[in-house]
């Protein structure tokens, strides 16, 4: 296997002298709450009611009022989250909600405490979460209705996959803007890659697969 190219990385950490281990004579029971108090049911998938509860609680939070009012956001994922002691949230039924606000081009990463009915952690950042199912469907719809795309598809070609895509450098619109790449083809062979800008809902690149 040839060595593969890697993404940029942080500075290589230097090996440090071996530190003397702080070894207690016996491990105190109090240090192992994460074992004794771990409840496997907290990892269970959220019920539809829990998902609805989490989203209601989040959108009613004042910090998100502008996002909820404009309504140009998409919920990317809602999944159970389990945290360990000594966190105050340990042992609580938690939902992690990740949403993307198109109006402000930012990601919302929130933890909802379903036991307490509150938003217990809320973070706004510039990360690009995975595409939601709605965004995947939207990207396919935009790509298949574009004349440049239709002109290059062969008989029987259809959308095979929708990938979350970002450009390699700032010469590419998809470097900073939320984008999808729709792969067209048939019988497991791809023929065309279409990049869709999900902010303006436009096709930005149409590239034969072999040239990608």
């Amino acid at each position, binding site marked *: *296997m040839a060595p593969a190219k890697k993404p940029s990385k942080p500075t290589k950490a230097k090996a440090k002298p071996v530190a003397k281990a702080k070894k207690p004579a016996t491990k105190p029971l109090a240090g192992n709450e994460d074992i004794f108090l771990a409840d496997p049911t907290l990892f269970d998938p959220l019920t539809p009611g829990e998902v609805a509860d989490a989203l209601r609680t989040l959108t009613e939070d004042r910090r998100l009022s502008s996002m909820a009012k404009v309504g140009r956001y998409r919920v990317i994922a809602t999944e159970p989250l389990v945290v360990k002691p000594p966190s105050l949230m340990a042992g609580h039924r938690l939902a992690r909600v990740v949403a993307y606000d198109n109006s402000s081009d930012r990601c919302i990463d929130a933890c909802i405490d379903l036991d307490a009915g509150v938003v217990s952690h809320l973070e706004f950042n510039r990360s690009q979460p995975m595409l939601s199912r709605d965004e995947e469907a939207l990207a396919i719809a935009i790509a298949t209705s574009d004349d440049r795309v239709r002109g290059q598809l062969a008989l029987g070609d259809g959308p095979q996959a929708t990938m979350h895509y970002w450009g390699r450098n700032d010469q590419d619109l998809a470097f900073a803007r939320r984008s999808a790449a729709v792969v067209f083809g048939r019988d497991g062979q791809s023929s065309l890659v279409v990049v869709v800008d999900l902010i303006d809902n436009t096709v930005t690149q149409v590239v034969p697969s072999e040239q990608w």
Partner: protein
Amino acid sequence: MANNLIQEANWKFHWRLTESAGIMVYLADYRGRRVLWEGSMPYVTIDHQRDLDVETDAGESHGQWWTPLGARTINGPVRVQSFRGGVELSASFVSGPYHYTQLWRFHDDGRINPWLTIFGPGIHDQHTYHPHWRFDFDLDGARDDAFERFEDGRWQRVEQEGWFPYGGEADEHGQVWRQVDFGSGAAINIRPHQWDDAEVFAIRYHEGEWPPFSPRSGAGMQPFPAAYVGNEPLDGDDVTLWYVAHVHFDQSFPYTAGPWIKVHGF
């Protein structure tokens, strides 16, 4: 709620299918002692490179892409099967021209194989897969842990978070990295696949630094998990490890990436 508890081959663990991180295994105990809080595969990114020389990367015009391995790409059920000396979970995922089989194999001698078999033609031959695994090992509990790497002929303690690529050195068993519990002396040893071109990120566990739903932390910024790496001390704290493989497609595919993990001292 489906009961996804498995008790077999000296192991007791739970599993569930996630939205984007494949099959997650959680609360895994070996011989009655806690080994793993949770382990998953947050993403497999793919990039297309006609020139594999890292130094001449400027000619590449397209960036990376990925699609979640989870509920929307699974192809068939999650399979639970016993094998001689252990039990395994497996699931197939399909996303257009990219095909995967995720495996979690638990051996009765304390080995764990979190593996990914990569199939499919891709859109052309010149592409590289970057599967990322995230392990939150809690040996006998979350704290009192340390991280070590084998370097300069001996195991060396790592004091701070960082990126630790496999540089070709390993102990007599092929182990390159390990997480040690101070209290019990138990350890998790990690041996990379020889052809994985592997690296490990060691990161202190934090609330808020939960498994990301994308490698993309922001335009022009370090991707996850590198974006989580700071200068925080690891010694005696709760450590999260990421194992990343870099696998270039070639005609010998399918290829199975992922580490050998061995529990020691239980």
